[in-house]
């Protein structure tokens, strides 16, 4: 269906080749999964295979791409290629144009030159297949990440293309939503669709992948059927990240010492409602200084709402939250930011300065700390960004931006660090790096609280795992200390 022959590509105004003499072919009914570290050229490969590079981007191109036997350059426009190939991007929000789910899919269908009857029929079947029928009157931007991605997938499937290209469709999704996407793809494969999938989560797609392609620095470093490719130790570590090596802190902390100190966080009978909608109910939790706690649970279980109480971004409707002896109700967010550093899921929500250094200095100025080079350097060193000090924050890779977000907060020297989904959207190695940094900070005496969907990270790194469901804590597991 799609054939790439010795493709090389360099983006306009850059010198580094994004794709370097890359060849592969995607056959009818086949599912190829492309994986590899961030910046390896996976998205560029997607754009090339979908004909987008040729029709929408400048830059230097070499080699030949054929779609259904016809050279990509001989197609008149992207819309013409889009009749053969459907593509779903990782940013689901950006693919939503209309204000109800049904409207979104219907509008995509209207432009295919189909009869009204066929359109109605396909609308129903596509919504049923992606399990969004019950969401049809909802506004796309109010849905959860997983639901949004299913709507984006449905709008693309509605076009009825034989070939489907998906660029990291599950990168921002939790376990449950990822499984649902995998189930949908399994059904599509069974129907004989041809799939090119860019993914980091091999385990979820294991049973549908025929060929796995591992990319590094614009080149294919391994390709073939999964058991063969994963036979190579080095390659396996790229495809399936191993968090077991991180290990927990060695030995239990001295109990007497711990008891002498104040608990880092004490939550007593906490309930919280957004207007009339209850979000947290009767939460009781104590987190000790120096602990590494993972909060797990599905989307909407109240994890983020809980951690926002720790620095008074949200004030309890009932009950109390005490941080290092301070009741949050009596302190401002700025006061509490000296004790609790909160890093949100998307680091891009905080960057506005021109350099990495200024970005870190911003937090220091806010709480009246000296804008000291040593403090900034040490925070950047902790985050492994010592060499990026003068760069523009948005030019950094996704993993580096996540680490910069951590550095910005660490520089403010809060005892407690709270991170909402610190590894979502990162590849395996970047996630490992972030977790290693957090373990290191714990060793230096910080209390670490993370929200995560990644069960493996929670199991391997946390001292305790707090499981939440429907606004309640349903269990607290103490992990064994290794």
């Amino acid at each position: 269906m799609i054939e790439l022959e010795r493709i090389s590509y360099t983006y306009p105004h850059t010198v580094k080749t994004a794709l370097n003499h890359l060849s592969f072919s995607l056959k009818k009914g086949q599912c190829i999964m492309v994986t590899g570290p961030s910046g390896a050229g996976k998205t560029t490969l997607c754009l090339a295979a979908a004909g987008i590079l040729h029709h929408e981007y400048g830059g230097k191109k070499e080699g030949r791409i054929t779609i259904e036997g016809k050279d990509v350059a001989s197609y008149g426009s992207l819309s013409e290629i889009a009749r053969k190939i459907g593509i779903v991007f990782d940013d689901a929000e950006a693919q939503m144009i209309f204000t109800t789910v049904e409207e979104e899919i219907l509008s995509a269908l209207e432009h295919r030159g189909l009869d009204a009857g066929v359109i109605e029929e396909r609308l129903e079947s596509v919504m049923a297949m992606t399990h969004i029928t019950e969401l049809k009157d909802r506004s796309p931007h109010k849905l959860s990440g997983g639901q949004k991605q299913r709507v984006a997938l449905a709008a693309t499937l509605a076009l009825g293309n034989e070939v489907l290209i998906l660029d990291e469709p599950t990168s921002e999704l939790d376990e449950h939503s990822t499984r649902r996407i995998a189930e949908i793809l399994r059904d599509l494969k069974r129907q004989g669709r041809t799939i090119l999938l860019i993914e980091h989560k091999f385990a979820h797609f294991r049973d549908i992948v025929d060929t796995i392609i591992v990319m590094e620095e614009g080149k294919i470093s391994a390709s073939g059927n999964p058991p063969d490719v994963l036979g190579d130790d080095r390659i396996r570590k790229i495809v399936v990240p191993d968090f077991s090596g991180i290990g927990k802190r060695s030995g239990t902390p001295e109990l007497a010492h711990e008891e002498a100190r104040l608990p880092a966080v004490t939550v007593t009978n906490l309930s919280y409602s957004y207007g009339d909608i209850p979000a947290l109910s009767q939460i009781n939790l104590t987190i000790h200084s120096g602990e590494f706690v993972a909060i797990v649970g599905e989307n909407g279980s109240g994890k983020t709402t809980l951690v926002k109480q720790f620095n008074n971004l949200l004030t309890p409707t009932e009950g109390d939250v005490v941080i290092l002896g301070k009741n949050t109700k009596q302190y401002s967010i700025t006061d509490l930011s000296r004790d609790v550093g909160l890093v949100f899921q998307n680091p891009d929500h905080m960057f506005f300065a021109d350099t990495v250094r200024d970005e870190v200095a911003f937090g220091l100025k806010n709480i009246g700390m000296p804008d000291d080079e040593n403090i900034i350097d040490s925070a950047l060193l902790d985050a492994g960004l010592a060499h990026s000090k003068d760069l523009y924050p948005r030019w950094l890779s996704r993993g580096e931006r996540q680490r910069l977000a951590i550095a910005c907060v660490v520089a403010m020297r809060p005892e407690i660090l709270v991170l909402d989904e610190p590894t979502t959207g990162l590849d395996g190695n970047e996630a490992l790096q972030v977790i290693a940094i957090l373990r290191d900070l714990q060793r230096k005496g910080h209390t670490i609280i993370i929200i995560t969907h990644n069960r493996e990270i929670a199991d391997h790194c946390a001292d305790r795992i707090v499981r939440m469901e429907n606004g309640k804590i349903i269990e607290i597991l103490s992990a064994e200390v290794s």
Partner: protein
Amino acid sequence: MSEILAYVHKDGFFHRLHPVTKIIFIIGISAVCIISTNLVFLLGLVLALLAIAYLSDLYTEVVSQSRLIVMMSLVFIVITLLTIPGGDLIGYLIPAGVPLIGNSIPLTWGALGIGLILSLRFMILIYAFQLFLISTQPRDLVHTMERMRIPIDYTLMFIIALRFIPTLQIEGKRIHEAQLARGYNPGTGIMGKIRSVAPIVIPLVSNALSRANVLGLTIDIRGYRTGKRTRLREFPVRGRDYLVSSLVIVFGCFYGAAVFFQLL
């Protein structure tokens, strides 16, 4: 959080009107409120729009932005009072007792009247547009604009601008929270707003721009710009549309004529 100008899925009277009827309604209301200088009449129009919103089950959504509208109105009134003196004198902003600059900056009834007229017009325009936008699905709007022979690129630009308002609103809130968590305290009042511009607007605009590429590709891939479309589920023109359109046109013409011949 109430969302500005986002479509609300309901089935009230205004929702059931054809988009063209609503466009005629807006044009009619806007024309009448611009030619009118009668305070009582304009106030009547504001109340009439609120009544329509109430009867169409959209009252809560329409009044949700009232705080902003009142603030803007006050700004209008203050500016006109300070800059357009006319009519009888109310007094001076700086009293006679102040040495050297006493009895300066006159405040007049005429300026107050103009300020009030401007504010009421502003309210009418905002309420009318809000009623239109929150009761019309973008898809119907696209169809209508297409029938009005507006080029598809302009239609898409308009739809996307509207569609991104709630997204930016939610994103803005998240960015605000992220900066607050970094100890950022821009303070309250106007100075606080000015200080908070860079840390909030820069990430907001940068994130929106990075999204534009995917959005543009999606539009092309789904073929929205081809302009060829299967017509289905089009909004039917019903009796009530003829009724409302006729009422608006007749009322507009009569009012226009009355003002022109100075009967009012």
